[in-house]
């Protein structure tokens, strides 16, 4: 079977932020991402999961160059997009779009729905005239399930689910190849969340999109993703096919995350044992030595404090744990 081509490659990406420690104190360095490498195939959905502060949103923004990485490269169809001249980069921006979590907060309240959706066209496809823009807006609105008469309304007249459809239309209007979905359904009601997830699946099929789906909700990520990347304190701890990750998690953190997900099935929920994680995520300003997960890991040994585990191939995926070969982790859920 021929493997589809890699459309995006992230190579040793790193990002730090400088954090004020007080008026006269030397600023502290927060390591948001460290040594992130993976690639995405054409047409694939890659899920990125982790707890708050793990760097998942920062990673999405670095890929789109909305944040400038400190180190490493992002290769879009083989080209390092950070090194592209401005004009070239603008062309690439058509290909790379993003959908945000809070739909209403990410829409300008003083623009009409039509203006919001058309906005990317003004900079990214300036060659289109007004009539062509309007036609494109209407076509995109139809694709995401918005009625044509909504074109002159304002965002506040819409519910969260409809507002997210507007956000999706805005991302879709430039005919992108890849969309980063950053917690796109977290702010929505359950029934609306399911509608939007179905919509994303339909659009993906219809337009041949590649998706990066960032979420803290593992049930949602599981539902949409082909492969899943697990981040902890800005580092990759596991990358695997969705089915493998859920059936046989290799990293103790992945396993703990999976067993913590509430299951909407009372009998199974009562039966299962949660692999409870003690404590909370440590500060990324002063991360633990060696394996950053060791402070919460019940399998940690001396080596874990001394040496950072490198990513090793499991045959079907990658895992960063000194003990992954010897640990028998039961299925996650």
């Amino acid at each position, binding site marked *: 079977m021929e493997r589809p081509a890699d459309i995006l490659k992230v190579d040793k990406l790193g990002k730090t932020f400088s954090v004020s420690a007080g008026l006269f104190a030397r600023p502290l360095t927060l390591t948001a991402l460290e040594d992130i490498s993976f690639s995405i195939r054409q047409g694939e959905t890659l899920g990125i999961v982790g707890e*708050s502060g793990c760097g998942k949103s920062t990673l999405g923004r670095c890929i789109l160059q909305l944040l400038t990485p400190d180190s490493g490269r992002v290769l879009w169809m083989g080209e390092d997009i950070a090194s592209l001249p401005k004009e070239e980069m603008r062309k690439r921006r058509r290909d790379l779009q993003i959908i945000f979590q809070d739909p209403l907060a990410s829409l300008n309240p003083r623009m009409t729905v039509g203006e919001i959706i058309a906005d990317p066209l003004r900079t990214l496809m300036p060659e289109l005239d007004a009539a062509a823009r309007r036609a494109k807006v209407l076509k995109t609105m139809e694709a995401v399930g918005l009625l044509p008469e909504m074109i002159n309304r304002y965002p506040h007249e819409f*519910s969260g689910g409809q507002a997210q459809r507007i956000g999706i239309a805005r991302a879709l209007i430039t005919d992108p190849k890849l969309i980063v979905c950053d917690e796109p359904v977290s702010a929505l009601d*359950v029934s609306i*969340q*399911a509608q939007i997830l179905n919509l994303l699946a339909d659009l993906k099929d219809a337009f041949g999109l590649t998706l990066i789906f960032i979420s803290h909700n593992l*049930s949602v990520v599981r539902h949409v993703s082909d492969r899943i990347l697990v981040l902890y304190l800005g580092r990759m701890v596991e990358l695997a096919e969705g089915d493998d990750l859920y059936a046989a998690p290799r990293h103790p953190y992945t396993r703990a995350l999976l067993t913590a*997900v509430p*299951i909407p099935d009372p009998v199974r929920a009562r039966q299962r044992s949660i692999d409870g994680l003690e404590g909370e995520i440590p500060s990324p300003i002063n991360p633990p030595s060696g394996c950053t997960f060791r402070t919460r890991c019940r399998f940690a040994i001396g080596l874990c404090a001394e040496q950072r585990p490198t990513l090793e191939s499991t045959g079907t995926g990658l895992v960063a744990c000194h003990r992954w070969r010897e640990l028998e982790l039961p299925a996650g859920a």
Partner: protein
Amino acid sequence: MEKVLSVHDMSVTFSLHQSEVRAVSELDFALARGETLAVVGESGSGKSQAFLAIMGLLARNGHASGRAMLGDVNLIGMAPDALDAYRGRDIAMIFQDPMTSLNPSLKVRTQLAEVLVRHQKMDQARAHKGVIDMLERVGMPEPVKRANAYPHELSGGMRQRVMIAMALLCRPKILIADEPTTALDVTVQAQMLDLFKSLTQDFGTALVLITHDLGVVAGLADRMMVMYGGRAVEKGTTDELFYDPRHPYTLGLLHSTPHVAKRARRLDPIQGLPPSLEHLPSGCAFHPRCAFRFDTCFAKRPPLAALETGREKACWVDGPLQRQAVA
């Protein structure tokens, strides 16, 4: 079972500029000692407003009617001063975002001790000891150190523990938790749900869990009340509603919930949007979104009626719903 709270015919209305909106209509339910009742619904279902009304915390333009009996005391319509004798002592409420419920300028121990000084007439020294004990009980790491911290110095999970500790200081009979874990990471959420479970068992506290997350409900609740458009549309045990839902809305919620252990190609969501309370549909408020609707549903609102097993539903469709495999 000993009833700690029984609510009869409770409605909540809000006066707007020129109209009145009914957020909760004719709610009836009871809560037994030590049980966990999940109140499930989406935005605008009235699930939060119903319990804010019981706590006397409605916005100024809100008005509640009916009865909410705590023993032989009716909490509805009681003056705030009189309510203060029961709030915090017998019935306590915690919210989704703990930061908005904690005073940012007071140390944790100061705001927690106030509860004991006020309700239990403790002196400061005993109150502070009580605070540390309770923080320890709710699983706060390094409770003495955290007690001396300000809320902003704590993580989200720790703040929620402070809220729970504060709510439990007087060993209330009833704890109302409004989306208590929605803002938390899954691992912290799991810790919180564990904590709730042990607290209801150890203290006999009755827990009301207001949520839209059926995963949380499945692991914690004994009984469920599903609300739509301000009314209870289905009530029963958690198992009854999950494995044999009789209201199409309950079924729709189950179909909309992704399951971590199974990957379905598509979810089967409820069509359309939740209704606006100002313009509730005629007849059954759910009919515009309902796959099972027929003529009667447009014209007449189905009453909440008891089925043979004691469970209740408000729907004109008879018997079990034809359902595909749920979850």
